[in-house]
Each structure stands twice: as C-alpha cells, then as structure tokens.
C-alpha cells in the first residue's frame, strides 16, 4: 500500500513518461542504512546477515557489536539525548531488553511471523525472541569420565563437597559482577533452584575461577586447566566443539535454562521501515532456518520444525528445558538494591570480598 502510494507520488513528482514501466519494488529502500546494536558475535550472525543482504540488497546493515551493559547505556544515552541511535537492538541480556521495552524505548511490530512465536518469547508486541539457547555445563572429558560427570546441580554440589582437592580452582563460571548474561543466569538459578545457595557456597570453597568472557572459560576447559564450566551458553560451546575442541556438553537434567535472544525496533528508529523489514526477516521461516542450521541456534518460531534437533543432541537428552520467559518479572533482579544484595551475597559465597 505504502509502496504503491510512494510510487504514485514519485510519478507525480517526476514526469508521466517515467511511469510506464512496472515498479521495481525494491528501489524504494535504496540507500537505506539499518543500524543494529547487538551483543551477539557477528560471527554467529554472519550467515543471516549475508542472506538478508541477498534478499534486500538495497538495505545496508550497520552491525555494531557491544557488550550488554555498555550497549544498554549507550542506547539509552543516545535516545534520551535525541541523537540518532540504533534501529534495532538485539541482545541476549533479556532483563536489560525487557527494561528498555518497559521504559518505552520500543515500537510495535505486528506480523504473522510474530504470531508464530511462543507466548513466553514475546512481550507487548514489541520485543521478540529469535532463538533459544540452552545454558549448559562444559566438561573436559580427559579430567572427568562420563561416570564422574555431574548430571544435575545436586550432583555437582555433592561432587564439589566430596572431592575438594580435585575441584580446587578447576571449576569456572561467569563473573556475574562483570557479565550481564552471567548475572541473568545466576539470578534465574537463584529463582529456580533450591540448590543454588549451596552451589555457590561449594564453588567458593574450591576457589572457583570466574570469567568475564565465557570464551576464555571454554578455552580453559578445552585446555584442561578447568574441569567443568558452569552456565555456558550452548552456542559457544557447540561452535568450539565443531572446531575440534576437547569438550563434552552436559545439559543439566534437573532443569536446563534457555536464554532467548530478543530484538526490538527502537521507538526513535531513524529508519523504521528497514528495521521492521530486518526484524521480520529474522522471524521469518527463512531467517529462522538459517539461524538454526548455520548458526547453531535453536529457532524460536514454532513454524520451524525440530527446534532443538540442531543443538546436536536429542530433545530427550535435554533436561526440562526452561526458556526464560520475556516479561516484567525479569526486571526484578535489575532493582538497584536487589542487585547490590545479590552481588554481595555472591561475592561472600565465592570468597571474593
């Protein structure tokens, strides 16, 4: 409709002679730039970006990769300051994404592709989950045999208590004071698991290593410096595994959290049309299929079959998968006092005062 209206307007503006040929259809996006702020490695997203370029050569994607915290602060600063900021924000720091939407930084996007998302993967018709990503444990198979490998958090706590010497500085996890995703995962653990307190207590006792960058943790596990990495994003582990690293991926059998990478179109997007086009592509069957096959991410859309098949394991091998629902509850742990207290408790338990 819009396209036709524009064409007619163009015809009026130019001369009637130019209107004989049928509309190009894509020419109206010519020279458009869509700015994406994202926490995801561009390596993970390269396949979909390349495919989108093939589909919409007239739209140029400007892909800005940032850590979750700085991304949040920069985006808010730029929008509040009235500067042109991102058209689309894409992040696995779901809590920060939800807060941005709650505070009115997003705009509505409606389409049948959006309807095909499960209800827990969208909110307000503004923010949409694109991929599920299981949160796993990575194990060095040389240090821990299949029998010794803990399958649940309770197993892990018992093992940590029973084999203090073995585990000394040989377990690693996020430094949640530095990583937003790590903080989100720890907070969800605290909410979901009654063993979480005991777990960090035990980790503290064996002087667990903490990492701001989870890639380094995976490297350390693969190199044998660390026996087990706790709360690792499945996509990172999977891609290292395919690169030939010595790793075993464990999906905790008590429950396996799944992080949802969520995207929204900025309310003040300089190029909303292009932004909606890109978001729609990411949720489309084509985009979802490429995310699933080429980027090793589980598609969020219910239209893409075998959502978890691409994770490299049978769905049955995954414990109860608990995707973290997108909703206002996520803002709880962003509360200033709550966060301070949670981090203080964590530091105390981990012995990092």
């Amino acid at each position: 409709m819009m396209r036709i209206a524009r064409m007619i307007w163009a015809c009026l503006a130019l001369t009637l002679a130019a209107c004989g040929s049928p509309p190009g259809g894509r020419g109206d996006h010519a020279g458009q730039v869509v700015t994406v702020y994202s926490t995801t490695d561009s390596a993970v997203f390269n396949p979909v970006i390349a495919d989108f370029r093939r589909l919409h050569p007239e739209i140029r994607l400007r892909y800005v990769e940032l850590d979750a915290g700085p991304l949040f602060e920069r985006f808010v600063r730029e929008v509040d300051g009235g500067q042109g900021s991102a058209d689309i924000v894409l992040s696995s720091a779901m809590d920060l994404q939800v807060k941005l939407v709650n505070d009115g930084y997003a705009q509505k996007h409606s389409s049948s592709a959006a309807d095909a998302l499960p209800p827990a993967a969208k909110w307000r018709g503004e923010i949409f989950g694109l991929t599920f990503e299981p949160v796993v444990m990575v194990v060095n198979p040389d240090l821990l045999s299949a029998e010794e490998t803990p399958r649940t958090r309770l197993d892990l706590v018992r093992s940590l208590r029973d084999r203090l010497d073995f585990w000394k500085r040989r377990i690693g996890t996020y430094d949640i004071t530095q990583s937003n995703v790590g903080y989100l995962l720890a907070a969800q653990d605290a909410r979901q698991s009654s063993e979480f307190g005991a777990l960090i207590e035990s980790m503290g006792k064996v002087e667990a290593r903490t990492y701001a960058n989870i890639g380094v943790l995976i490297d350390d596990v693969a190199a044998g410096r660390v026996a087990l990495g706790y709360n690792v994003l499945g996509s990172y582990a999977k891609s290292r595994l395919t690169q030939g690293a010595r790793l075993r991926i464990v999906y905790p059998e008590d429950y396996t959290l799944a992080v949802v990478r969520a995207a929204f179109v900025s309310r003040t997007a300089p190029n909303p049309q292009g932004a909606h086009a890109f978001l729609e592509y990411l949720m489309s069957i084509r985009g979802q299929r490429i995310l699933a096959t080429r980027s090793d991410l589980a598609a969020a859309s219910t239209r893409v079959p075998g959502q978890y098949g691409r994770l490299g394991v049978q769905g049955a091998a995954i414990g109860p998968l608990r995707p973290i629902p997108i909703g206002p509850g996520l803002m709880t742990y962003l509360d200033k006092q709550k966060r301070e207290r949670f981090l203080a408790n964590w530091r105390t338990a981990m012995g990092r005062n």
Partner: protein
Amino acid sequence: MRLKGFRSIRGALLWRLGIVFAAGMGALYLAATSYAKFAADSSFDQLLTGSAGSIAETLSITPGEVRVDIPYAALDMLAAAPDDRVFYRVIGVDGKTVTGYSDLPFDTAATRRGGATGSASFFDARYRGEAVRFVTLGREVRVGGRSGWVWVQVGQTRAARSQLARQLTIRALLPIVAMTVLAGAVVWASVGRAMRPLEKVGQDLAARNAADLSPIATNVPREVETLIAAVNQFMGRLDKNMNVLRTFIADAAHQLRTPLAALLVQIRAAETNVGPARKDSLAAAGLSAKRLARLVDQLLSDAVVAHRAEARHTAPFDLKKVIEHSLHDALPLVGDADVRFTTELPEAVMLGDEVMVAEAVKNLLHNALVHGAADDRREQVVEVLLRRVGPTLELSVSDSGHGMAAEAIDAAGRRFNTGNPAGGGVGLGLAIVRQVAESHGGSLRVENRAGGGGLRVTLEFAAA
C-alpha cells in the same frame, strides 16, 4: 383519522419502541461502561495491591537505611496483564526514592488518605506517555528512634484493564441488542396478526350487496370493538332512515294520487258538462289543483326541514321578526279572518336555523288559517302570542275552529296523520313543526282551547 406523521401502526410502534430501546441502550452503555471500568479496576487493583504488599513485606531497616528485597513474584504477577508496562519505587522516610523509578508521579493527597487507614490507595496518572494506574502502600517504621512512613508504589499501564472493561461492556450490551431485535420482530409479527380481523372486516364490507346494512359479525379484538360497534350502529341508523324514506315515498305517492285522481275526474266532468254544471266542475278542479299545489309545497317544506336538520346552520336570530315576516307572507290566505299578533317583547333572540323556524311558523299560520275556519255564523279569529317564560320563548297559535278529537291530538305531528280526515289536510304541517321543534331542542304542544274555542298549538324554544 391517521396518526400524525405515521402511515402505519406497525411503523409507529417500531419507531417508538426503537426510541425507547435506543435510549435504554444509551443509558445501559453508560452504566455498563462505568461498571465495567469499576470491575476491571477492582480486579486489577487487587493484583497491584498484592504486588505492592509483597514488596512491603520485605521491608527491613539496616541502621539508618530502608532496604527492600523485591520478590520476583512482585513484578511477575503483574504479567497477568500480559502487555502492560510495570513501574515501581520505594520511598524512604526522608521522602527520597530508595529504589526503583525515581521520577514516578506521586499523589500526595490520595496517599495520605490511604496511609491514615493503613490501606492501599490508588490513583491514575500519565507516565512516559501512557496512562498508568498506581497503588501506594504505606508502612510505619522506626529509624534511629523516630518513626516515619515508608511508601511502596507500584504502577501498571491500563491496556489489560481497558480490554477487560471493553469486553465486559460488550457482553453486557449484546443481550440488549438481541432483545431489541427480538422485540422489533415480535411487534412486527403481532401487529400483522392483530390487524388481520380488520382486514377481514374490510373484505367483508367490500364484498357486500349495496342494500345489505346488517351488522358486521366478524370477531375483532377488544380494542376495535368500539369502532365496529359504531359502524354497526351507524348502519342501523342508516337502515332505519332508509325505511322511513321508503315509507315516506310510499305515503307521499299515495297522498298525491288521491287529489290527482279527483282532478282527473273533475276535468273529465268539465269536458262533458255544459252550462253551470261545467262551471262547478271547473271550480272543483281548481280547488283540487290548489290542494295539490299545497301538498307539493308541504312536501318541499318537509324536505327542506329534513335537509337543514341534518346540516345544522345555527345562528342567533330574532323570532319576532320571523313571525312578522311569516304573517306578511300569509296575507293572501287571511281573507276575512281576524289575525292578531300579540307580544310584549321588543325582540326575541334565539339560537337556531332561521329558515327552519320560519317554515314551522309558516305551517302553523297556514294550519290555523286553513283548518281553523269557524262556522259561518262566527268570525274567524287567529291569535298569535309570543312571550317569554323564564328561559323559554313560547309561541302559540290559536284558532277559532272545531279543534281536534282527543286521539287525533295524541297523533298530531306524525306524518300523513291528519287530525280531520274530512278537512282536506294531508298531515305534513304539524310533522314539519314537530321536527323543527325537536331539532332545536324545543317542544310542541297541541291542545284544544278551553271552552271549545278551537285548537291551540304552542312551540317552545330556548331563548338565547
């Protein structure tokens, strides 16, 4: 008569019913909207209160500082309104925001009211471009030996409330709309049903023989019984009038035939006779023709009176002048008679039809002059007296004839009833007078004068 502005009963009913239902629906819409908003607010307000309460439960005081530990459920439970944004803050004893959104609007008055009773207070305000419903909950705490209030404020946008309110309103209105449509259909159908007997009456009347004036026998609803009764009564009257007319025509024909027959005989006699006998026959024929003329005159007069009685031309006029005119007109009949008109009234105004009354007076004078002739040895006297008795004007005409037999007096005033079969009258004059009297609400009195001095006819009218 047609209802003003409406061509059909059905249309009128539907129109009025429509207005009533539209007004009812408007009122109901307002009531439903306000009730729905109230219902939606009260159910979602409970959620807000629950959220604020669960935050307030975690209040703790570390030396000099208020602390809260926002429960996950506090915000998550508000996701029952799936698309609504959520805002909260906790305000410390010093009035500063302890945690949460520090720029939330705050309704101090509403908060004080709620705070005084220790219960939650609610208010609506705009925040970040949307209408937001807020609850504030106060808790009295002691910090550093002094007591003060800590406020927990939780807000949520109104999308789910509005949606619920809309649904409730629609559900409340749907039955009303259905009822309206149903009522319309019922009115449509039942008016059709109710009108069916009337249609049948119409068909019956249309199919009737023109002479058939029998009552309508169709069963009709009670509401139109009066109409049918009136029609039946009217037809009854018409039937009676027709019968009277038929009788009259028959009588009139009979009355006309007798003098005509006599006339024919006398003319024939005149043709054959010679000399003085011929002269007598001609005289007799002339007398018969005169009587015939008089009869036709009276029939005409009767017709005029009957017509005017129907038409009712009522106006005030002076009866005295009417009498004087009639006396003047009657002069050719007077001959040797002594006619005396006595009245003390300067004028006698009454309401009525002057022409009819004039006919009546003319007939009275004619009767007195023609039939009141005395024996040859006495002088013929006609006395006309007009006086006023109370509210009544009384006109009496007396003659000096033989008067009438008692049974004839009783029958006087009926058509073709002559008081004196030998007298040559046809019995129309008094009938006309009676009709005039009756159509004016007056009366006619016929009596023999005391002492055998002839007949007195008295007419009474109401004076104006």
